[in-house]
Each structure stands twice: as structure tokens, then as C-alpha cells.
């Protein structure tokens, strides 16, 4: 993918969250006041690091056990999160690193700056990672994180969510986002969610309960597909060289 012929489609800044969104207090002093400078796309934007299966350890994709004492498990509702990573052209994105992090079942992070009164779970660390397969599919196991309150000047609670980091093949495809759970009533009251203006865009970050991949008497599954930036050269336009 990293060749000189491709051009990534410009980011739709109206679809992405508003950088300056005072109801999310931390954005007030951390959002640029000047317009982004548009420049010709350079090779360093179209290329990027490649991390494959070789970076992974045996339990990296299983947050239920990857921090736990031997023979023990994290507390919470056990779930499989899986989905497909595609680009905006619908092409599968194989072999790309996905990093995830989250609070425990009580809504507490294992971090010295998190002083929410909910207890830590000695068997839960909160980080995991996996690499998409040849068809762009990824999967990991975890426990469903709890909602939590956060200091934002008011009665603010985050919906249950899992943070995602996705690489893609070009540095300008780099993306960090969050996954929400369908039916969570906290979604509609969260200022961070509402930095995104379009309800369809919020819906795109909402994982669906997936009964066909849940295992009876064992574990529930959620499906969460992810799209990264595509290229604006189509297969037809570039047919001679292929794409």
C-alpha cells in the first residue's frame, strides 16, 4: 500500500469531533485556535511502521487473564470483542496492530491518577492488543468495563467504553477512538461522545451484541467494525497499475 500513487481521502472534519468543545472542559486549552495548514501529501504521510504477529505474546489478546495470577481471572462480565477493519473503500486492512485499554468492571483504571472510589481488581491490568488477520478480522477477550465519573465540573459519567488505537499502513491513517456498547443510556449524556456532532457517527462507534458469536453458558460477543481512511484513487482509474 505504501506507494507514491495513492492519495488518502481528506479527513472529513465535520464528521470527526469538534476539537474545541467547552462542555468537555479539557479541550478549552488544548485545542488549536489556528486552522490546520493544508499541505501536499508527502511520502512520510503515506508510509508508516508495520507491526505484525511477532510483537504479540500469547495472552496479549485476553484481558481476562493477561494480568491475572495464574489460575485466576478478572472480575466482570466476560466478553469477546471482534470485528473487521476496513478502509473507506471497503477493502480489508490485514496485519495491522490494534491496541486497547479500559477500566475494570467497576469503572476504575489501574493508574495512579485515577482516584475513583471503586476498587482495583488485582487480576485486571486493562491493556491488550492483537493484529488483524489476512481478511482484516481482529478479536480479543475482556470483561465489560464499568461506567465511571470523571472531573469535568459537573455530574459527568462516561459510558462503558474501550479505547482503541489503530495503525493502518500510512502515518496519516493513524487513529485513536473509543468503542461504546449498544443500549448504554450513558451515551446520550456524555460530553466526550457529544464532541461528535452527527448521531450516525456516534452510532458507528457503538458495538452490537452478537449472539451468533456468543458461546452458550460461556461468553457473550460484541461486534465492532472499524474503518480507517481510504484512498481516493479507485480501482478503475488505476487499473493498469492495480491498486
Amino acid at each position, binding site marked *: 500500500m505504501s506507494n507514491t500513487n495513492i492519495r488518502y481521502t481528506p479527513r472529513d472534519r465535520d464528521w470527526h469531533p469538534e476539537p474545541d468543545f467547552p462542555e468537555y472542559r479539557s479541550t478549552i486549552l488544548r485545542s488549536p485556535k489556528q486552522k490546520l495548514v493544508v499541505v501536499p501529501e508527502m511520502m512520510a504521510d503515506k508510509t508508516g511502521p508495520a507491526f505484525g504477529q511477532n510483537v504479540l505474546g500469547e495472552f496479549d489478546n485476553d484481558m481476562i487473564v493477561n494480568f491475572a495470577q495464574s489460575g485466576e481471572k478478572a472480575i466482570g462480565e466476560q466478553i469477546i470483542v471482534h470485528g473487521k477493519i476496513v478502509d473507506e473503500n471497503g477493502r480489508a486492512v490485514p496485519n495491522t496492530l490494534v491496541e486497547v485499554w479500559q477500566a475494570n468492571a467497576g469503572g476504575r483504571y489501574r493508574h495512579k491518577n485515577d482516584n475513583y472510589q471503586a476498587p482495583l481488581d488485582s487480576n485486571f491490568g486493562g491493556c491488550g492488543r492483537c493484529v488483524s488477520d489476512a481478511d482484516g478480522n481482529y478479536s480479543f477477550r475482556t470483561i465489560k468495563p464499568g461506567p465511571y465519573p470523571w472531573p469535568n465540573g459537573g455530574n459527568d459519567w462516561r459510558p462503558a467504553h474501550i479505547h482503541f488505537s489503530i495503525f493502518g499502513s500510512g502515518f496519516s491513517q*493513524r487513529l485513536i477512538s473509543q468503542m461504546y456498547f449498544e443500549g448504554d443510556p450513558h451515551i446520550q449524556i456524555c460530553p*466526550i461522545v457529544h464532541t461528535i456532532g452527527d448521531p450516525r457517527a456516534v452510532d458507528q462507534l457503538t458495538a452490537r451484541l452478537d449472539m451468533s458469536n456468543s458461546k452458550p453458558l460461556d461468553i457473550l460477543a460484541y461486534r465492532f467494525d472499524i474503518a480507517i481512511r481510504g484512498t481516493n484513487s479507485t480501482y478503475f482509474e488505476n487499473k493498469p497499475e492495480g491498486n
Partner: protein
Amino acid sequence: MVDFRSLRNAEAQSNLDFPIKESPSQTAGPYVHIGCLPNFVGVNGVYPKDLTINGALPDGDKITIKGFVYDGDGAIAKDIMIESWQANSAGDLKNGIWRRMPTDLETGEFKLETIMPGSVDGNSPYINLWIVARGINIGLNTRIYFEDNLDEKDMVWKHVPKERQFTLIAKRVEGGYKFDIRLQGSLEGEDETVFFDI
């Protein structure tokens, strides 16, 4: 109404619509380190070490770039994560160098240890940066250029307003380079770091 019996084993619909749009960004939040640099914040034992480089640092002129990230009040931000991507010393991006670093939790200083990039396609050597943190809803892209290695004919340079070009230039200091980042400038805005829509 759908019969609940058939829903018990139903396949989930995709959360993506057509035409497919990029998944919207969300802030990396205050605990981005747990996911990306867990050992740095004491979540030990999951990964043997944090992912801070792609492979080993190749041959070339070793350089260290240090700096701080400031918010709109001029306060030092201490919970930032930065990633860099650049050519190797031969200007080759197929063997490019990726690094990931936090700002120090106590002092806020970041330290980028790398190799002086070679020129790509006749442009000035530079390093791409991507900055994420609490309060940043979509990652910010900027570039480090070098005061002693700058070619005014660079194809990006002419797109950057003259009075703000200085925000992209790393200064030579004892032991390496100094490069500060201002997420938000004063009202006149000249001191705000130039961020790119790449």
C-alpha cells in the same frame, strides 16, 4: 415484530454504514499510557517491554530532541503521548523510523532519541509527529525541521505562513535539539505550533 426466538442466535449487523466513512476519532483520554505504554505507568507484566520503536535504531547521526508541550495558558502538559515517523539517514521510508514517547509524568519533558533523517524527494529533512492526549479530540500532526538542515525550497515550507514557520524549527542546543509544542497560542496565534491536515 421480529420473533425473539430467531434473535437468540442472530448475527450482529455491522456498525458501519454505506458509503463507509472513517471511524470518528475520540480523545485518547488521560490513561492512554495504560494501552500504549503500560510499563511506563506501572502496569507491569502484561508486555515484556513497552512498544517504543519499530525494530532497532539504524545507523546514522544519533540525535536527541527534547521539549515540552504547552497548553493555551502556557502550562506544561504532562499526560501527552507523541509518536514520530521519519526516513532513515538515507532518506528511505520503507525502512523508516517510528518512535513512541510520553511526556514525563512529573516534569512534562519529552525526549525523542533517533537518527537525523535523510532528505526525501529533495525536501528538507523532517520528522512527522502525532500528538494525542486528554482534551485532544483528534490527533494533531506536526513536523520537526532542523535549523541547521533547512532548505527553503522544501515543498511544504511555502504553504506555512512565514510568521509561524519558526514553530516548526528545532533549535540546536547543548547535546541535541530543542523543540517545544504549543497546542494553543495567544489570540494573535503566531506562537501556536503549526498543525497540518495531512
